[in-house]
């Protein structure tokens, strides 16, 4: 089985960005512990894609199931960015919603969501959009039950559209350099507002504005990982133990945190200006920093670490 081959891959060497969703899950969890729910053999495929003459996937682009992490039971979902950009269709979304509802009953140590998505699958737009809303409600229910929901973001599709809103609902987020979190994608902004507003071909601009380093520096994410499965595993274990509660106090703190961000940085044109004002000494060097140098920079930024999420 493909899953067994992936399990033999060294998590220290396996690139998160390059790995498939199933490889990420198998290598992230304790060896041999992953049990997939609605596996591809059940062929729960999209009922809608044939209308568009589009190929289907036996898992509709998402892997969900149970596993253990450092011996503790977890539930885990991983989007496959290579299938239709990891987008939310009816089946895809319902698998994630079902997993979160199962968490209320099974009370795992945590739920992990491995995002890799462009947002809503337009061929199933209404079902995808509604599933995103259901997912956010379910995450809140799970968090309120005291179960951390941790998002891991470092795939090739990034975390866009409704995926960005779901990420913002999680207890904690880990990102890598390749992880991008945003609502409107670069092409969407350019198509609607013009290249003067956002030149989607300017990849450096995309990384500065939406990339993992920017999100980590501003407190949009709680951990920054090297691009390996083992780095994400360590980050997940750390973050599970530091999950903020879901209550009025947390949301009041988040309100203050976000209001303060807009008051302080609302006139910044570029991420580089914002990083300078945050207290980064040489903001132009941030994109080229390696993981250790970047960690040292983050450690000096007060806004990066908080429980206001």
């Amino acid at each position, binding site marked *: 089985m493909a899953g067994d081959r992936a399990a033999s891959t060294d998590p220290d060497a396996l690139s998160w960005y390059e790995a498939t969703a199933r490889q990420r899950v198998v290598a992230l969890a304790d060896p041999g512990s992953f049990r997939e729910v609605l596996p591809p053999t059940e062929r729960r495929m999209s009922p809608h894609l044939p209308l568009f003459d589009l190929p289907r996937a036996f898992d509709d682009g998402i892997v969900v199931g149970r596993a253990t992490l450092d011996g503790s039971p977890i539930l885990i979902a991983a989007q496959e960015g290579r299938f239709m950009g990891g987008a939310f269709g009816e089946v895809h979304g319902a698998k994630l919603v079902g997993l979160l509802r199962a968490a209320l009953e099974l009370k795992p140590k945590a739920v992990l969501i491995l995002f890799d998505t462009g947002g809503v699958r337009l061929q199933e737009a209404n079902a995808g*959009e*509604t599933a995103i809303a259901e997912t956010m409600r379910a995450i809140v229910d799970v968090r309120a039950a005291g179960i951390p929901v941790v998002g891991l973001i470092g795939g090739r599709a990034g975390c866009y559209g409704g995926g*960005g809103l779901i990420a*913002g609902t999680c207890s904690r987020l880990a990102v890598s350099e390749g992880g991008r979190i945003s609502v409107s994608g670069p092409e969407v902004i350019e198509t609607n507002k013009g290249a003067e507003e956002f030149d989607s071909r300017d990849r450096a601009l995309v990384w500065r504005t939406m990339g993992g380093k920017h999100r980590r520096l501003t407190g949009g994410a709680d951990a920054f990982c090297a691009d390996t499965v083992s780095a994400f595993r360590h980050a997940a274990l750390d973050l599970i133990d530091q999950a903020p509660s879901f209550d009025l106090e947390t949301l009041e703190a988040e309100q203050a945190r976000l209001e303060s961000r807009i008051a302080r940085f609302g006139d910044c044109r570029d991420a580089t200006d914002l990083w300078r004002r945050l207290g980064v000494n040489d903001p132009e060097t941030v994109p080229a920093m390696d993981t250790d140098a970047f960690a040292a920079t983050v450690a000096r930024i007060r806004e990066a670490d908080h429980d206001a999420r």
Partner: protein
Amino acid sequence: MTLAEILGSLFPDGHSVTVQDGLVAGSGPFAGGNLAIVGIDGDTPLGVDGALTLARSVLDTVRAGGRTPILVMVDSDSQRMSRRDELLGLNECLAHLAKALLLADRSGHPTIGLIYGHSAAGAFIATALATRILAALPGADPSVMDLPSVARVTKLPLDRLKEMAKSTPVFAPGLDNMVATGAVHVVLDPQKPLNGQIGNLIAELDSGDVRDRLGAERGGRPVARAIAEAVVDQARGG
């Protein structure tokens, strides 16, 4: 109906609701107590600033305690598409607004969405779709993306998409399709007073999220509910 007409029908004895920069806030007497109003009017795009203003109103209502219901009025554009909004973390701000509404509902403040105009994409998720029950007025126009944009992305001719839209509610914009998928629970009657209709919705709130059941019953989301239930069953089992 316009916002003013809706407010007149909800609050025949007057109210304190104001609109500033397209953002709606205030309250009025309702069923022996109050009904808190937040919302977005005039096809306004929802950016970081607006999302935090609305979230502030919602959290204020929660902090004040009681069980004041919150009505979320929606006639918006999509999320504001700009470099500044994304730089400042629009995903966090929209998610924060949704979380504030979900917290309110969990804290005993029933949340009801009322879409009376347009809404789309991230703005729709953060407002109307984050309420416990979403009502609509005839003429409302919720969408994920307009058909010409869908045509561009899917590389299908617009005429063919329009033809497919007639028989396939799962992708086409519009109120009827959002009703079919279960996202919109009910369409209200503009000829009857809205205070009674909203009051009935609050009195008959379902517990839990019923949208996938509605989508299955109405045929707009034929498999979502069964898939979610199968995941729960299998996760419990093996």
